[in-house]
Each structure stands twice: as structure tokens, then as C-alpha cells.
């Protein structure tokens, strides 16, 4: 992974999430973090703002969820019961189970600026008056776990965490919980269920976690990148955040974009929201490796629809990519080059999705392995007439609303778009009858 080469030039005004990252990517300790406005937002929130003011700021800033769904964080928070009648125990959970294939942005933030996430969580917890928080961390993120735990200890010692945050009368505890390696734990309700020590099956909504989440209590689950924006919004204001996208998108803020696949310089970079996919791929990713042409690309993870080279000039934001019938997802591009067979690419993805199904609902549990086996047959040239129709039926019936959660619909996105754009490659996998019986 390469971080931006000239990070030293970055400013908090334009690159709030990453400007503090050191060239060697080593984590900032609390002293170094405090020296660069660290915990200033927290002090401001506790001393100058009411919880509701913080939520309003985040709402006004139009901070949309960076986990992939783009739901406005401030709106999410405002659904949490507040006031004297609200349940005493409320929870803030950070979704740091970054398992979306091709996505590695949260890792950078947690490994290199762990205090930023911790400060963000304390401020967010203050806004919803949560008393306890969890960082649900992908189990393989060992460095992040180490850095976060060390940072939490430092924050505790500094009085930012504990019974009296910054000496006030509100207390907040924060824990790192490492997952055991299930993709489904990235789904917020499955994450909650897993955090309770149960099988990581998703929950039906309603009730939404803001009403009945962890341990049945009001809970907000936000992505690492989403939360990491919060201190900056508190410090610099909603208008500043709105302006970060520089008119490239009606969405606000910066976004950590990235690219993987056979490009010259894969990596991730903090750029204005709405930066074009072409700029991400060609300027920051260095373009395709020599001799390779771009065949198609996934805008933000394995569970987004393929887009074609002609879509490269689209602004990478939630609504623009949705209009092109895909999703921005996590915003980290995966590119497919012209030497790759699309059936193999999709087969590989569906293998992953089938394995990661939690096994709760029928279409996902039994439909995904079948999908995978059909693709495998097509890949080996053992497909049969009707296989494509079966796959197409799968894309309809494993779609949104038909399955229990978004896992299978996500799995169908690359398949349905691959079938749309590259049908010929699938048809090529069907066995031709050896002899034609004369009519």
C-alpha cells in the first residue's frame, strides 16, 4: 500500500483525516496527536456544546456513512432516545470489521492515527450520551489492535476516557473487540449480535439499533472513516466540511479513495468527495500496468456492480454512482484487466460470498453455493443450457427484500452486471452438444 507520497505538505484544512499521518505510517502517540489539535474537538464539545449541538453539527455537515451505505450519520444519531426518560445504558459501536474485498482505508486510519478514532468516538458518544463504546475490529488487524489499545490506555491516563471525561460529569469507557473472522460481522446488526457473544446472524429491522441494539439498548454503529470525520466537524464547523468536496459533489467532506488490481501504484488517498474515478485510477493509481487495458471496475468493494471504462469520468459519490446502476460502496476501486475472464472473476467473488453467508436465510445459504457451482461449471466449460437463466433468476431472487440482510443482494451486484456487460463470456462456458441430431 502506498500512502500519498508527499504527506508532509497536507493540511488539516483540506485533508483532515490523513494530514497527521507520518511518512513512515507509525502511529502518533498522544503527545504528538495533541500537538496537532488532538483532543481539541473533544474539549470543545464537552466544555462548550450540548450533546444535541454535536448531533446538529454532524447533521448540518451532511456527513454520510463511509461504510458503504451513505446513510447520514447525524440522522442516525438523532434517532437515539435522549433525555431523562431515555435508557441509562446506551452504546456506541465502531464498525472496524473491514472485510470488504479490496478495501483497506480504515486500516490506515486505525494503524496510523488511532487517537483520531478514539477522540471521534468519545465525541460521538457524548452526542448520544452513550456510556460505553466498542471498536469491533477485524481479527486480522493485529497492528491496529495493538495501536488502538495503546492509544486507549494513553487516553484513559490523560482523562479523556473514564468516569469523568475531561473532568466533567459524563463518563465513557471504550473497548477493542476483535472479531473472529466473519465478513457478515460488517453488517451492523450481525456485528451487534456477535458482540453479544452469539452467532453472527443479522437482525431484522425494525427495531433499529438506535432503539434496541446491543444488549437490547439504544446503539449507534458507525464506520471508522465516518467517525474519524467527527472531531474535525466539531472543530472547524459544518460549512467548512460542506466545502471540502470543492463542488465536485453535493456530498460533503473528503473521502478516502483507493484502487487495487493491476495498476501501477495501488493504494488509498484522501481526496475531495466526488473526485472522478479516472483521477483516482490514472493520477493516483498510476494507471493500468503496461500492456494491460481496463476491462471493467468495481467502484467500492466486491458487493458493488461492475462499471465499464466509459464510466470512469463519473464523480465518485453516492448518488452519481447509484445513477450508473452501481454503488460507490467503500470507494476503493477494484480494476479488472482485459486478460482476466469475467466468469473467473465473478466465480472468485461468489466463492467468497457463499463461504461468508451466515447460513440464516434460505436464498443466501443455499442460493449462493449453487451460484458458485454454476459459475465454476461455466468457467470449466461444463455449463449447460439453462445455467444462465438459473443465474439470472438467482440475481432476481437473491436481491434486495428477498433475503434477510444485504449480504446476498451485495453478492448479486457483480454477477448481475457481469451478465449484463459480458454475457458472451458466460455463454462460452456452455457445453455444445457433441453431435447434432438431424431433424
Amino acid at each position, binding site marked *: 500500500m502506498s500512502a500519498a507520497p508527499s504527506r508532509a505538505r497536507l493540511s488539516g484544512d483540506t485533508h483532515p483525516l490523513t494530514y497527521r499521518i507520518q511518512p513512515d505510517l507509525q502511529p502518533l502517540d498522544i503527545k504528538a496527536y495533541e500537538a496537532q489539535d488532538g483532543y481539541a474537538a473533544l474539549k470543545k464539545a464537552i466544555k462548550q456544546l450540548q450533546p444535541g449541538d454535536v448531533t446538529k453539527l454532524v447533521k448540518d455537515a451532511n456527513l454520510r456513512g463511509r461504510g458503504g451505505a451513505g446513510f447520514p450519520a447525524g440522522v442516525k444519531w438523532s434517532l437515539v432516545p435522549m433525555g431523562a426518560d431515555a435508557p441509562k445504558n446506551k452504546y456506541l459501536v465502531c464498525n472496524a470489521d473491514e472485510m470488504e474485498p479490496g478495501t483497506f482505508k480504515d486500516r490506515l486510519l486505525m494503524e496510523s492515527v488511532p487517537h483520531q478514532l478514539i477522540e471521534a468516538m468519545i465525541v460521538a458518544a457524548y452526542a448520544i450520551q452513550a456510556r460505553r463504546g466498542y471498536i469491533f475490529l477485524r481479527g486480522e488487524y493485529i497492528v491496529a489492535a495493538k495501536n488502538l489499545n495503546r492509544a486507549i490506555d494513553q487516553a484513559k491516563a490523560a482523562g479523556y476516557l473514564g468516569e469523568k471525561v475531561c473532568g466533567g460529569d459524563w463518563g465513557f469507557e471504550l473497548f477493542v473487540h476483535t472479531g473472529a473472522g466473519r465478513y457478515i460481522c460488517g453488517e451492523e446488526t450481525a456485528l451487534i449480535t456477535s458482540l453479544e457473544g452469539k452467532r453472527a446472524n443479522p*437482525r431484522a429491522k425494525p427495531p433499529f439499533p438506535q432503539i434496541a441494539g446491543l444488549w*437490547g439498548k439504544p446503539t449507534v454503529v458507525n464506520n471508522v472513516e465516518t467517525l474519524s470525520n467527527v472531531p474535525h466537524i466539531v472543530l472547524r464547523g459544518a460549512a467548512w466540511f460542506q466545502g471540502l468536496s470543492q463542488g465536485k459533489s453535493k456530498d460533503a467532506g473528503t473521502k478516502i479513495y483507493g484502487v487495487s488490481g493491476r495498476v501501477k501504484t495501488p493504494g488509498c488517498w484522501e481526496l475531495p468527495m466526488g473526485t472522478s474515478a479516472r483521477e483516482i485510477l490514472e493520477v493516483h493509481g498510476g494507471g493500468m500496468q503496461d500492456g494491460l487495458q481496463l476491462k471493467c471496475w468495481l467502484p467500492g468493494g466486491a458487493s458493488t456492480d461492475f462499471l465499464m471504462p466509459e464510466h470512469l469520468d463519473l464523480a465518485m459519490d453516492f448518488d452519481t454512482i447509484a445513477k450508473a446502476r452501481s454503488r460507490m460502496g467503500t470507494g476503493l476501486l477494484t480494476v479488472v484487466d482485459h486478460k482476466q475472464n469475467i466468469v473467473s472473476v465473478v466465480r472468485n467473488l461468489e466463492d467468497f460470498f457463499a463461504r461468508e453467508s451466515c*447460513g440464516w436465510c434460505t436464498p443466501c445459504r*443455499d442460493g449462493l453455493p449453487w451460484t458458485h457451482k454454476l459459475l465454476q461449471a461455466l468457467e470449466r466449460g461444463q455449463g449447460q443450457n439453462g445455467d444462465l437463466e438459473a443465474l439470472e433468476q438467482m440475481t432476481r431472487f437473491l436481491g434486495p427484500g428477498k*433475503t434477510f440482510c444485504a449480504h446476498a443482494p451485495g453478492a448479486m451486484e457483480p454477477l448481475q452486471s457481469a451478465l449484463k456487460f459480458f454475457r458472451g463470456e458466460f455463454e462460452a462456458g456452455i457445453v455444445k452438444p457433441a453431435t447434432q441430431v438431424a431433424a
Partner: protein
Amino acid sequence: MATIHVDGKQYEVDGGDNLLHACLSLGLDVPYFCWHPELGSVGACRQCAVKQYKDANDTQGRLVMSCMTPSADGTFISIADAEAKEFRASVVEWLMVNHPHDCPVCEEGGHCHLQDMTVMTGHASRRYRFTKRTHKNQELGPFIAHEMNRCISCYRCVRYYKDYAGGPDLGVFGAHDNVYFGRAEDGVLESEFSGNLVEVCPTGVFTDKTHGERYNRKWDMQFAPSICQNCAVGCNTSPGERYGELRRIENRYNGSVNHYFLCDRGRFGYGFVNAKDRPRRPWALRDGKAITVEIGEALAQAANLIKAAERNGKKVVGIGSPRASLEANFALRALVGAENFYDGHSSAERALVARSLQILRDGPVSSATLRGIESADAAFVLGEDVTNTAPRVALALRQVARGKAVALAAQKHIAEWQAAAVADIGQHDKHPVFIAAVDVTRIDDIAAATYRNAPENLARLGFAVAHEIDANSATVDGLDKATTALAKTIAAALLAADKPLIVSGTGAGLESILSAAANIAWALHAKGKKVEIVLAVPEANSLGMAMLQGGDIGRALDQLAQGSAEIAIVLENDLYRRADATSVDAALKTAKLVVIDHQDQPTAAKAAVGFSAATFAEGDGTMVNFEGRAQRYFQVYDPAYYDAGSGVREAWLWLSDLRAQARSSEIDWHHFDDVTAAIEQAFPALTGVVAAAPGAKFRMKGLKVAREPHRYSGRTAMRANISVHEPRASQDADTALSFSMEGHNGIQAGERPASLVPFAWAPGWNSPQSWNKFQDEVGGHNSGGDAGVRLLDPAANTAPATYFSPAPKAFAAQSGLWRVVAMNHIFGSEELSARAKPIIERAPIAYAALNPADAAALGIHEGGHIEVTLGGVKARLPLQYRAELAAGTVGLPIGLAGLPFAVAGASIALAKAPTA
């Protein structure tokens, strides 16, 4: 109420339910798997998809899972929509991806919900051509067979077993398409309610092992509406027979009693019916040996004995039985006369049952129905180990605790059917259940607090709780601080509840425990609470026995021993279970014994004349359950059809014939209905026995009700080994049921009284799920009313109850003597089920239990043996440590094979047994 629109038709429904529940209640067929009326909705299987429209003008619509969608007013849906149908067929196709094609050899075949749903959705041909995943099966004990390859991952088994029944040892393992439902390792399923898995499972993963050993398809069995004989709860059952053998017992829905679930004793304890050593002909002693005799000869011999005794001015005593029907007991009473009719319980149990009846009949508080228990929001279990004495009550009590989650969810406007959300909100919160018992119980895990002590001290806690609630009730002197504090806690929790429940019973063997339970219930009643009471009594017809007002068995035995009585007629009873061997031997030394029973047991072995009685499978009868509900069971099959020489007859018939011969009178009871009518005439308190089920003249559309499914096959051939001529089907003059597939088998709502439904079947619904077609609404009451008639009506008691007093003195350990406390066992303590092979496998061997300190004082360690002397009989018993037993008490498994007759409350000496 809400108006919903289904495929263009308008229906009025209860808007609080989900759409699946509403549609099924309307009689519309929507396929489903993971949903169950008792388990609620979780949206896992996706089978119940329907198309929902925003309004009347929306033609697009979207698929929704009907189980997860409220039946809100103004809902527009289509079941018949093409996309919905295609999707539902797809769901079955996915489920069939791994499901084996083993229907022809699968025990579920023919009453399989998966088969029914597959046919309903129209999925008929397979496109999947790849390999299927396979699993290893587990050995789960004598009740349940496990075949995981058939699993469709509906998650019902764990939701029932873990969430509903509190079983700790069945789990979900694995993920994606490799989900495994089983134990962590092979082993006996621990829950006492594991048998319900065979009905909860929609296919053949969990099947009835006892059925598998002597298997027949459901459609080839003959059924009758029946009542479980193995405890006083009176669960409704559907026993199936073929070739003169019971093949299995399934649950029979009763909306007030057991609804969908039975206990394992009731389901798997039927082996005594098929016992090879059962007397099937009358017998008589000739030169000290029992030989079979003709029916007429047996009757003549017995009649002569009676006549001779009466000529000599000697009494003929009749000893009834709490495991025999009201009709059989009443027929005995009619033969010997009211003054010579004795209660079949032991003296001690008779007193306890009488006290229970008094509390239920004369007090102001109603007995709870089994279903009613579940709606309580606080419970106090005083002195009774219900899991082992009235097992199904324990399952109901678990629902009391679980009700808290429902209440918490309701505060967040989450409906009860949203099962997963309710559980997530409830987490570990429970409605308070307090348990006071002599030892640990199997439902302690739901208890807000437990209390262990000797029975007297349990009663004292009970009296103290009552006194806390109403100062007018008896006081308790000298209670220690901790117990007083607990009494206050319990009283406060019961008073804080909307519907508190008091559970007690005869199991601890102490009248004052029952009195204490009554005082608490009456005190709550005095405070205006909607309180109900549950009193577990020992046997299936204990309450009915008490209502017939027989005398104390001790007096009967005394009279026989003294010679003032010369003949004892013993009905379906083993006297050695009712009194100590010395007294029974003394009584039978000179007296002549006539026994009517269906089991070869120690008393029957001594009979001068014996009559081979029908079990519940071969006869009709009425029993009164613990709530005072009179319930009718019907003959399942006619043994004479397979064995023309069968001498198996209903006890009331034997006794009626014997009365006619002994009195040289005309037979006055020609049919079963004559007996029930006579009972009501003699005992106005038993009015309702006639109405417990329709009489023999009842017809539906001019037809009797068929005991056999309409597909019943092989009738012409089944006796071919005996004779190639097919005899006329057996005739049933006593009931409105026919021994045939001919007769009424329709399911039209309200047409068929619930008490006359022999088995669950409806067009397109062959599995137990078809019970949903026999209800006023799914999971509610039976169409036309739940079966049975409640005989006790406390609401009619206007006078305020007088509290029982005084409270008993505290138990004090006596040096050298141990107080016997009863250890009850679901498997083994009950006489009839203890004769069934799978139950024997699960029953403990007789033992004596002491706390380790008391054992050490005797110089015995665990694994060592204790010598006890009970009623003059010595027994050598292995010691079991029970840390919670009070000092100075010894736990004995009363009723278990290998233990001589023992009475709870007796003081006995113990000694270290010499090494064998």
C-alpha cells in the same frame, strides 16, 4: 381489528398479528417453515413470501415475508401473484439442493411438513446437478433419532429446544450451507421435552426412535383422541396403532392444556400397552399357579367368592385407583357399595389429594389451566419439583419467565411475534419465578431466587409469604432473618405482578405446604390480585379419585387383616405401591383377592381371580386432571380384531358384569354413556363428565368420526395370516368414533368437537402443522371450544376463604433419625411409564441421597451404600451426595423400582451397609 385485502378479497383480522398468522387463521394456505405459532417469526426461511402493494392502485408491489409483516389495517397483498409463486417455488428448490431423495425410507414421509410445502409450492423437478453436502448423525439417546442430511436449516429445533424449553445441549454449529444442528458431542438430549423436536422439525431430522423401531406410515395407523395417563396434567395425545400395537404417541392440540407440546414421559412412556407379559385373558389361581380361564368362568368364580363372603356376613372391599378412569372406579364402587369403596392412593397421598381438592373446590382462587400458567407474570413454586411430578408445568413456567421480554418489547411497540427482536430486547430479563424446594430443580435457571430446606421449613416460608401479603393470615414464629427477608421479597414480587401464580403440590408429601400455597393465593386474592393456583397431584386421575370419596386404604387393609372383610377387589392398582409390604401381606394373608388390571404386577400375581383390563388404548374413560378438568380418552383399537380370543375388556365392563352375576341382577349398564350418566346422578359435583365429550349417538353429517385416515391401506390383508376372510370392521357401540377409514374426517371449522379429533390431518396438510386447521385462530383455542369440562368453579365461592393455620413448627434434625423427603423422577417414578423400555433406560437406579456432611457422620462416602429399613423391608441403596439437602433429611426416590414402599415425612434410621 383490521381490514386486509388478499388477492382482491377483503377480510377482517386481528391487526396485532403478522400476515402469515392472519392468512392461516383465515384458512388461506401460505407455505412456511421457520415460523411456528409458539415460536413466532424470525424471517429465516423466506418461504412465506407474498406480494405487498402500497394501496389499491399499486400494481407493482414488492415481495415481503408475510411472517415479518404486520397485518395492519389497509394492507393489500397477493398470495397468488406470479412472482410471489415463483419465488416460493424457488425457496423450496433451494431447500431441496441438499435435501436427500429418501422420502420412501424416511420416517417423516407421509406426515412431513416439507413434503406438504413442496407440493403446495409446486416445485416438482430438480435443476441442481452438483454434489450435496452431507453430515454425520449423532446418537441422541433412546427417544430421538438424528438424520442431519435431511436438514433444511429452518432453525426451529434450536429455537424450540434452547429458547422455548431452556435446553442447554442442542446448538447450531458451522455456517453458510454447512449449518449443523446437534449436540457438541453424541449423548442423550438432556431436556425432558426433547420429544417435541420430532413435531417441531418440519422434516425427518429428528424422529421418534420408538416409532422407528416398529414403523408405520401415519396414514396406515389408527388413532383416537386420547389423554396422557402418566401424570395429572392430562395432556391431550394422539396415539397411533397398527396390528394391535401402539406405534407412537403424538401431541393432540388442546388450546387450554398442552397446545403443541408434550413431555418425554408422556410421549415415550407408552410401552406398557405393548408389553408382552400383559395379562390378555382372565386368570385364576389353581394350586398356587395362575392359569388363564374363560371369561365366563372368571366372572362366575369371582361372583361366587363375593356371594360366599356376603353369605358369611363378611365385607367385600373395593380398592380403586388414581390411574384408572372415573368410570372404572365408579363401577367398582357400584359393585362393593359406597361404604366399602376405598381410595386407591396411599393413606398419606389420599390426605394430600383431599387437601388439594379442598383448596381448589372451596377456596376463592381458580386453578390455572396449563395454558393459563404461561400468561402469569410472577410465580412462586412452593415445595414441588414440577419437572418430575407434572413435567409439562415446568415447560409452561419457563414461558412465565420469558414473558418479561415480551413485556419489555411491548414498551418499544414490538409485537410478541417478532421473536428475535423480543429476545434481543429481553436479553436475560425474566419475570420473577421463585422456587422453594428440598433440592435443586431442573428449572432453577429461570429462578429469581431459590430456597432449599426441609419440607416443614418450605411450608413456613410459604406461610410467611402469605402473612406478608395479608396480615390476617397465619403468622410464623421464629423465622430467621434471611428467610424473613426472602418472604418479603417474594411477597413484594407477587403483589407487584398483574397475574401472580402459585404452584405447589403433593410431591413434597406435606399437607402444610399445600396449606401455605393456598394461604398465599388467597391472600393475593384478598388483595384484589388476579391470582391462580396450580397444585400438582400424584397421578392421572388423582383428583377424580378424590371426588369419588373413597375411604382410606389403611382401613381396608385393616379390615382384611382382621377378617371383617374377606374379599378385596383391587382395580388397576398395585397395593405394594400404596402401603408397606407388611400391611399388604397381612391383609392378603387370608383374604381372597380379585384384581382387575392390564399389567403383571406384584398384587396381580396374588389374585385368586384376575381380569385382564384394557389400557387407555383399548378402552374409553374419563379422567380429572390437576385443574379439575374432566377429559375423555377413547379406545384406539379393538384387540379382538387381531385376536378373537382376546380377554382384554374395559374395567367398568368387567365390574358391571361381575355386579350382575354377584347380585344375580340384570345388567343395567349397556354402554359407556350409561356409566357416565350414573356417575353424574350419584355425584352432582361430577356434573360435566357426560359433557366431557359427545356421547355414542353423536354423528357428523350422519356419520361417525373415522379413527383411520382415509388413505388407510392393507385392511383386507392385515389378518390374512389368521384368515383370508376379512371380518367386518369392529363396531364401536360406546362412542361416536368408528374403527375404520369410513366416517367423517373433514375439518370444517367448528363442525367437529375438539374431543373427537383423533389425529391431525387436513387437505394438503399431513404433518402436525395441520393442527392449525382445527383452531379458532392459529395457536388459539380449538374450533368449537377446547376439549374437556372444568368441574371446579371457585368463582361460585362467595364466602371469603378462611386461612389455614397454624404454620408448622420448624424442622429440627433428630439424632439418629432421618426425615424422608421425596425425590421424584420424570423417568421412573410413575408406575406405568416406568415399564416402557426407553423410559427404563433413562430412569435412575434406586438410591438414597444425603448431604455430604450427614453422609460423613454415618461414615459413608459417595459410591458407598446405605442400609434402610422401610415398612419392615430392608434395602441396600447406593449413596448419592446432594449438597442442598437439609441436614437430617434423606432423599428417597419414592416410586422407583428397587425401593420398598416409603412415605415422605417418615423418620427412619440409616446405617452404613455392609460391603456386598
